């Protein structure tokens, strides 16, 4: 394996989590725990987010201007940070989604006949 693949794998994972966060916030502003739950829930618990890794990702998105943060109160009356999708973030979500669809489609296409072919 060359270094190139290695690097891209990391980026892929990062990008995916970002996409999922953006997608979850599309439904409305919410706090960190709710985002984690939302991702688990909407993927029928297939995607288990290591909840801690959410925070570097959230801050990365803030830094890029795709989401904003504000103080709020959670459903059980606790003070919490609420994350909100910005206009820029909405546009980015569209871009990322289409990119992801293309990638997923391409991978699916590659994988379908792969099992039948002999290795060279």
């Amino acid at each position, binding site marked *: 394996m060359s270094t190139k693949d290695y690097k891209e794998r990391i980026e892929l994972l990062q990008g995916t989590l970002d996409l999922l966060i953006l997608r979850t916030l599309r439904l409305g502003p919410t*706090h960190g725990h709710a985002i984690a739950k939302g991702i688990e829930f909407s993927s029928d618990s297939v995607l288990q987010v290591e909840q*801690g*890794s959410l925070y570097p990702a959230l801050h990365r998105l803030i830094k890029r201007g795709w989401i904003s943060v504000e103080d709020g109160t959670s459903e059980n009356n606790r003070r919490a940070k609420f994350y909100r999708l910005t206009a820029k973030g909405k546009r980015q979500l569209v871009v990322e989604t289409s990119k992801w669809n293309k990638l997923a489609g391409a991978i699916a296409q590659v994988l379908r006949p792969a099992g039948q072919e002999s290795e060279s």
Partner: protein
Amino acid sequence: MKRRERMLRDLDQDIRAHIEAETQDNIARGMSPDEARRAAMLKFGNVSRVTEDTREVWSLIWLEQLLQDLRYGLRMIWKFPGFTLVAVLTLALGIGANTAIFSVVYAVLLRPLPYHDASQLIVMNETTPRVGTVSVSYLNFLDWRKQSTAFAQMATVHQVGFNLTGVARPEVIRGLAVSPEFLSMLGVAPLRGRDFTAQEGNAGTEPVLMLSYEMWQSHFGSDPNAVGKTMSLDGRPFTIVGVLPPRFRWLDKLDVIEPLGVLLTNNADIMERANRGESVVVGRLAPGIGLAQARAEMDGIAARLAREYPAANDGYGVEYAPVRDAFVGDSRPAILILFGAVLFVLLIACANVANLFLARGATRTREIALRFAFGASRGRIVRQMLAESFILAILGGALGLAFAEGGIHAMARWIPSGMLSGTEVNLNGAVFTFVAALVIVAAFAFGLVPAVHSSKADVQSDLKEAGRTSSASAAQRRLGGALAVAEISLALILLTGAGLMMQSLYRLRAVDPGFRTERVLTLSLSLPSQQYSTDPAILNFWQRALDGVRALPGVEIAAVGTAVPLGGDHWRTDIVLEGMAELRPGDYPHPDMHIVSSDYWRTLGIPLVRGRWFTAADDEKAPKVGIINALMAQRLFAGSDPVGKRFVVGHRAKKENWITIVGVAADTKLYGLENPARLEVYLPFRQAPFGDMNLILKSSVAPAALTSAVREVIDTIDNDEPIAATSTMEQLVSDSVATRRVTLVLLGLFSGLALLLAAIGIYGVISYSVAQRTQEIGIRVALGAQRSSLMSMILKQGLRTALLGVGIGLAAALGLTQLLKSLLFGIGATDPLTFISVAVTLLCVALAASYLPARRAMRVDPLTALKYE
């Protein structure tokens, strides 16, 4: 930064809220509170790592990485002291040489001239095909100024000299007589006092002057009340009206400036149109006018003036030079060639350091591969290696500055001031900026290639094999070889240039100047016309001086003469031969005129070709006689004997002034060893009394030791009479080739450095290759290869590299030595002998540099070599 702090401040609380929410959820799912909390913590992961990772999102990652890279680089530099020392020293030599030469380039070619908008200032001379550049006639200047619209302003600048008298030690003062608007046109205001007034441009004005800043310091101790005081020049009191600002300079060195009116008052002959003294005209182009437009207009004006006053102007044109070019003169090519040469040296130095990096990169392949494996990106590795090169380059630059500081002091003493056009060479802001730029460029030049190269390492194979025999190291060897080839070609170009210069200087010094220089001393004196207003007074002075000097112990023979060969200024005028047809004004013979005493030729060792020398009998009462040189005899009296023929000086001279030729002297190189002889006429000093003469004496002792004795002799005749300049003939000859000599010595120094660096480069490449191939060589030995064949294998490798470098270098040198043409003498820019000997020298050096590693290869012990892996 603010945003970062705000974002991170609430992070802990946010995380706590998150875990709390998860715990609540778990409790709702029916866990006990403890269990619920533990599960929540587990699901969240390592809180401190999350915090750290989040912080990193907001940190200035590049800055932290840069610091990290620099720390790492410093560690590496510390870890390989030998490598560091060689690299830094190599760079310091390259950067130091560049800095020193750039400081000259800056001082001469780039430093802003101390005038307002100097690019608009044009210096003008008159020019005639027969003589070349001559001064501008004052009346022509007045017409130019009146008729030209392309120039907003125009001023004339005359060179004048005075004897400063009424002081303990009389001295010669150099000055300018200028149009009153000269300074304001340059945009220069006096530091103290006032500028000249318009009236002071007219004849009849009171004698006033402005002091140069240096003169004000040295002669008036920077006295704030110097303005208003008087100064006695040539016995006349001048009122000081101002002091020039420091760093003011003009084409010639100057001590004082007087308004033109003062010069006009005492020199009525300036008002003759044909009189061209020692002057230039400087003009400021009108706004929006370029030199080409101004030239077109001025050429038209000059042509009209030539038609209007053919006697004075026929054949004369105008010569234009931006004031910068007038300052730089003909030293530009030498300076630029030296600058090019040091850049080559720096390139070689960079190639050498790059090679060192490559070789060391190979030993670090495993380390770099490991870093890749741990997830470092290629960009990061390149950055890291670049950080290392930067540290080296900065160290090299700092040491180079120290070298340059020493070098500049040595050069300043040693470069002829004419080559520097009177400016001061020093380390200054511009030079420091240049060094900083060099450091950056050098760091990239020697760092980038090896860095990128190393970063291409193949992780898997490098980890397994440490790159010892991998393809990566073969590529590395090729790259190293290419760098060595480049070094050799650059060194060859420099050596060829130096070789050509050396032969030029050698051939120039071998030229017979036509006079002997051994133990000859010359002293120049100028008798002020106020005190020496009659011919008997002048003759009396020179006769007494001659008698006094001849009586000095150690003086073998002495003479006076208006001109000293190679001394610079000469007086030329038209002559008319008896029986010659009427000619066009520009077509008369125009020889150099020398006024000499009878022992002039014997003192200077100039041989007599025919006829006789002057004798004491050729005095003011005797018939007028003259001596011509061999070239003139050949040109004007082809076939016939000139002795006994007659001529007059000037065309309108009265016929009773016929001068009879009594002898023919051999030709001399009056205007420099490389210049052809010119027509020369000698007149006896008693028949043509003249105030400005040189005492020339040949001694049996070291000539310089006589200076003070001569000074005393002059003092007994007139203790107000200064000696302007003292020089031995040997010094004059040496000065006349000074620019060439300095260029040669520096070029020689740089090419020697280049040769050394290139030799080290080849040695490095071959050594490295031998080290890499130890195993292969061991196998060859084990299989029974002859040791001598191993040796020749390695030597051949060195020779191949050298041959390639020499080939490329020769091709490039063929083109580049053309740039040297103006500095060469008696040798072509493509002299085959020089090219061949330089090529052979380089090949020998390359072989010698390969020999040491080759011997090492020969001694490889197969057992050790094979166990090595």
